[in-house]
């Protein structure tokens, strides 16, 4: 019998592999999604996230491994034998049907009684704020409205799992920010187990309760958005999620605290850094987020790690200022700060940057 913990898992993917000819699109992936949570599959194109989605929806069948939905094995069930709602990237609204007919399509096929169909259709259109547009055809709606119809259509038959395929990528940047908030509100209200597939880390971070980073058919890291961002498990995740600085150095020895080491950088500076596992004497890369840097104050020297360099460029980009600093023997460092002190720095200035040892991470070089 399934334990209580297992029963609360709405979706379980266990050791699933899918090959297309010689290409392994999904390679032995295992993850689970708890009831009512939103999980994002994040990765570059071709990483296997879309194939994973299609496997869960039932458009593809795994070569090996098991997919279970609500505790029942569904590996080889057809799409209409699972209760999975799907928001397609191109929305896939039926162009020959009105908004109302689109929304009712799933309800009819899921055998809802006549009265329930009307109620349910009204409720989901209310939810996505599209009441009054029932008799329109998809071609008469804006992109954002079409997306909400598609979402309403997917939610109408009360699916066990909702899959969103790149939900915001087809919209332009400004609309995207608006709709992201709106989408989040809707998902909060329906409380449906949701999987979002996206290549956009902002989308993943803002929508997901947890994020699964994928690359080349494998899962690189699974965790909360802040975990993924602050403590990437490997170089790929660090590079793919957010911007990062890589400072080449050598691990010297264990630092004063547990889990920290001293690293000697190319310019001879010795800094402390968080380090999960790297033997002393090995070459390494020190990873620091651009916004982890500050301009060092007098108090910082001693308590924080510091680097001295010369300002190469200052680019005010609205709310943020991007500053590039050339550190001799280390390379170019990108610093992102709020647009408050940016005007004080100028090209050619000598500057001392500081960062907390806890905000950096040491990755051993692969070879």
């Amino acid at each position, binding site marked *: 019998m399934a334990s209580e913990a297992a029963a609360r898992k709405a979706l379980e993917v266990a050791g699933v592999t899918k090959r297309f000819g010689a290409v392994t699109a999904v390679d032995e992936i295992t993850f689970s999604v708890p009831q009512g949570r939103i999980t994002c599959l994040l990765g570059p194109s071709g990483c296997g996230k879309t194939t994973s989605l299609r496997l869960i*929806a*039932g*458009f593809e069948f795994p070569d090996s491994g098991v997919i279970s939905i609500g505790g029942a094995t569904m590996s080889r069930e*057809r*799409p*209409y034998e699972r209760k*999975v*709602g*799907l928001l*397609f*990237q*191109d929305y*896939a*609204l*039926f*162009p*020959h049907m009105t908004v109302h007919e689109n929304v009712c*399509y*799933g309800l009819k*096929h*899921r055998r809802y009684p006549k009265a329930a169909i009307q109620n349910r259709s009204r409720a989901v259109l209310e939810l996505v704020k599209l009441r009054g547009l029932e*008799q*329109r*055809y998809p*071609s*008469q709606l804006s992109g954002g409205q079409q997306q909400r119809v598609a979402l309403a*259509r*997917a939610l109408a*038959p009360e699916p066990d799992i909702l899959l969103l395929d790149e939900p915001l990528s087809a919209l332009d940047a400004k609309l995207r920010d608006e709709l992201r908030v709106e989408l989040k509100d809707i998902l909060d209200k329906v409380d449906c187990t949701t999987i979002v597939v996206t290549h956009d880390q902002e989308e993943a971070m803002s929508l997901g309760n947890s994020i699964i980073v994928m690359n080349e058919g494998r899962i690189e890291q699974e965790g909360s958005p802040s975990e993924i961002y602050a403590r990437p498990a490997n170089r790929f995740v660090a590079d793919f999620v957010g911007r990062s600085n890589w400072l080449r150095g050598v691990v010297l020895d264990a630092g004063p605290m547990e889990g920290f080491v001293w690293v000697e950088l190319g310019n001879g500076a010795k800094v402390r850094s968080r380090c999960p596992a790297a033997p002393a004497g090995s070459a390494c890369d020190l990873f620091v987020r651009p916004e982890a840097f500050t301009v060092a104050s007098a108090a910082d020297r001693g308590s924080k790690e510091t680097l001295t360099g010369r300002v190469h460029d200052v680019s005010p980009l609205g709310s943020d200022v991007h500053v590039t600093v050339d550190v001799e023997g280390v390379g170019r460092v990108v610093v992102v700060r709020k647009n408050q002190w940016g005007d004080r720095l100028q090209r050619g200035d000598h500057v001392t940057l500081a960062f907390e040892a806890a905000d950096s991470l040491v990755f051993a070089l692969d070879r």
Partner: protein
Amino acid sequence: MKTMRGKRWIDDTCRVAMHVLFAFTFLFLFVPVLVSVTMAFDARPYLAPFPPSGLSLQWFGEFFSSDYLLQGLWTSLILASASSLVAMAVGSLAAFGLDRARFRGRELLLSLFLSPLIVPGVILGFGLLLLFSSLDLLEGLPRLIAGHVLITFPLCLRATLASLVGIRKSLTEAAMSLGATEWQALWEITFPLARTGVLAGGIFAFAVSMDDVAVALFLSDPTIYTLPIALVSMMRANFDLTIAAASLFLLVLAAFSTWLLARCVDLGQGVYRKP
């Protein structure tokens, strides 16, 4: 300045030349039709040179009182209706299949299906005659229908395939994720969206079947023959203007049925239905 004017001169000349070309093409296409339409109303009781000296409806009277021609017309109508319906069903199903299938030899199969369009009708007709008689298989009307399905279904296949190109695969998948089976998705989503192509193919098929001589010539027999066959054999025996009257009748029939169909099914309206 000078080169500009030179270029304008070339533009103007080309425009005039194009209009002349259009006019010639138009005349080439329509003068024969106009001549035969006019001759159908010829009042002279014998075949005489164009233009007619007076007008009458006598040749239409001849046409509608000739049992021989009327029986041919009746056969043609039944044949064209039956074969275009079968061709529409077979052709559109083949198109649905070929559109989504990705297998080795798909292109070859498609070429094979479309080959009746390039094989001369005489060869097809003769081949079918030999095949059917050696197998002792079909006779009379069913034999004619079989022959006409063969030459018309590639038209339906091609028209349907063309209309399927614009239909995204995600629509079928959306239908299936909403609980529709493969058949329901085909019938409720793909077919209504491809309807224009399917019906356009059907109209082509009907027209080709009404018009065909080459294949029908081999598959007709003294009791079952089509209107074109009747007209051809009448032309050999006693050539008079009943043929012109019959042609005009067919022309009007074709124009009327196309107009009727267009009104009923929004022909040419594309995928999106107006509210």
